[in-house]
């Protein structure tokens, strides 16, 4: 199912570290307002895929286009400014900054007052600062009460694990992305929180109109949110389609359970 014109296109992308091929000849299209999940066993190349899209790694082959513009070779901050934001699987918040400052820092690419003007607080600098505050509050309010009020002035290190994951998402939203890459947003969350994050991702698309590419291991989440699922194994796309189709795909079951496991699953005969 495609929700609109293609926004992010990967065309024959490959990446190898020495002799280890992490991504091989990968084609992927994400349409506007679509939620696509990437699944695959550990080491399948999912996070590498994100690192390639956001410019942390440079692909050895292929092209990555955002709305037709080639992203290969651009610096990561430039790619983010063009509209690709991500969260990190391992949580990389600015721990010694407050919750609100974390979000405000991510608005760097969207604002322009330089250091000299903010040093003397010109009227333009003050106006922009006010706008940054307003937008950060708006992003944080997206999570209901969880990151509001007194939380704004708390340091990120004092947050609970689930709130850190939420703050990562808020920070990524603050760059005003066209496509949001979420790397395991539900990892380490309890069932209630997982449920909440599932609803939140849907809300990100429905209310805010974000396009979302998400890596997730929790199949309930994947089933709950995905318009389309892409399965990777050893850097190769092994299946693509609706959740039902991919989840029952022979090669996907094999990748997760091994060949013998897959045979047992299929039953005797």
């Amino acid at each position, binding site marked *: 199912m495609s929700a609109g014109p293609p926004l992010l296109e990967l065309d024959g992308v490959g990446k190898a570290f020495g002799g280890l091929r992490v991504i091989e000849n990968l084609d992927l299209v994400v349409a506007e307002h679509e939620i696509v999940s990437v699944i695959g066993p550990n080491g399948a190349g999912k996070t590498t895929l994100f690192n390639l899209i956001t410019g*942390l790694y440079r692909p050895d082959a292929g092209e990555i286009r955002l709305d037709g513009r080639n992203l290969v070779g651009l*610096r*990561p*901050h430039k790619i*983010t*400014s063009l509209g690709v*934001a*991500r969260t*990190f699987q391992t949580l*990389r*918040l*600015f*721990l*010694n*900054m407050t919750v609100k*400052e974390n979000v*405000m*820092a*991510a*608005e*760097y*690419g*969207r604002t322009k*007052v*330089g*250091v000299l003007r*903010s*040093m003397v*607080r010109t009227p333009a*600098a003050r106006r922009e*600062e006010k706008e*940054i505050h307003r937008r950060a509050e708006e992003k944080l309010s997206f*999570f*209901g*009460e*969880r*990151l*509001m009020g*007194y*939380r704004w002035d*708390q*340091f990120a290190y*004092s*947050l*609970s694990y689930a709130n850190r994951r939420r703050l990562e998402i808020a*920070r*990524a939203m*603050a*760059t005003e992305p066209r496509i949001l890459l979420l790397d395991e947003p539900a990892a380490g969350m309890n*069932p*209630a929180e*997982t*449920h*909440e994050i*599932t*609803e939140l991702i*849907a809300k990100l698309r429905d209310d805010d109109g974000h396009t979302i590419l998400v890596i997730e291991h929790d199949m*309930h989440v994947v089933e*709950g*949110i995905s318009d389309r699922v892409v399965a990777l194994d050893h850097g190769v796309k092994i299946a693509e389609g609706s959740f039902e189709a991919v989840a029952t795909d022979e090669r996907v079951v094999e990748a997760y359970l091994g060949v013998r496991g897959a045979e047992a699953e299929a039953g005797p005969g």
Partner: protein
Amino acid sequence: MADGAPDIPAPPDARDRPRIGVDEWVAQVEGRRERYSGLRGAVERRWERIPPAARVLLFAVPAAAFPYVTTEGNVFRYGLFTLVYALLALGLNIVVGFAGLLDLGYVAFFGFGAYGYAILASPQFGNHWQAEAAIPVVVVATALCGLLVGLPSRRLFGDYLAILTLFFGQAFVVFVNNANRISFPFAGHVDLTGGSNGLPNIDPFDFFGYKLEGTRQQYYFLLISIVLVLVLLYWVHDSRTGRAWRALREDPLAAEAMSIPVNRLKLLAFVFGAGTAGFTGAIYGSIATAALPGDYDVGLLITIYAIMILGGFGSLMGIVVGAVVVSSVPELLRSSANARPLFYGAILLALLVKVRPWPRLAAVLAGLVGFGFAAHAIASAAYPRLVHGHAIGSGAFAHAMNHWMLLPSHHEKIADVAYVFLIAAIVIVPQLKRLWRTVLIPPLLYLVMFVWENLLLEQIGGATRLILLGALLVALMNARPQGLFGNAYVEIA
């Protein structure tokens, strides 16, 4: 969508679960802080209620009154150097405290500023520029120099960056020591830096004919500069650039992924840090009236870092307080009349804080007093020579010491041996079990006082005060690793 998935546990009824976003533990953080009882809680709450502008005044007003309550010599000895250190540390704070770039070559920019001003305003080249022209030129030149050092450091972080900048710092020292006969294509041999003799007879600042010659004028000029820099830095700290710097300090990769151009901001931090150092260098040159290569070496670097670590990385107020402590404590300790109360006061304070509950404290103090009298009695009966000496100084305290402390008439060797024992004991005693620790504290304290009265107090003007400053830093880093005013979260593995 989620509705179709029967396996996802439905959230319990909203009324039954705790209010969203208020998990117990985190919600209590505020309450816990509020509940710090006694002096500590009161001080902390008061401090947080003071608006930032008033905090500057809290430092600026006493500092402005300082020359009126003391002598010109004191203003020179305590005041000028404290302010120079503070201004220098504020610049380093941009690079290390804000942007998190471990810069070990920073002092070279300070030296560059001093030599730069010396070249523009000393008999060396016959230039006698006005300060209003010389200062901007020096600051801009030093900032450009910072840009040059920053360029090759762009891709480096942490210890690699530290080594590279240390190289630049040392290269500067070697350069100024040898740049007294550089040969230029057309000018022939030029004496640029005076070699190891430095550049003497630097002009005082001359603003439109008004010369800053007296200690007081220089002091106030420095004070105004610091207040100005404090305000500017405070504004930068809470601006787009300041936040980007701090994000870069916390996690460069995440910062880059959040649309922050990390390389450009690193260069910017280097430029602003170097500019501040150059400004301070020009001031220092005009005050010291000479630029000497030895002034810009690793020793100063360590002092400036000590100030920043003591005050807390990234905290502007902490740096000012750190500068006051680091530059005035060694000066105060020069005379034994000051050193003794400070020393015993610190010991008493440490006991009050660390030895709990109070019966244990009382037992320790009683044990100490008893141990002293017993030792004194045994020694005067067995080896009278051990108590024939006299405590340094006069007054009731020295008098009491004569009857309580072992004061050998020829003490050098005994005290030296005791010093070695003391260091060993300080290492060993904290490792012991609680009961043994309590039992051994009184003899240990007595040993401390013995070494203090017989050895350290005599050399108070020399090595002792530096040893004490070192001990103070060690103790503080154990008690508050984030520094006095820092609020960084420091994980101790």
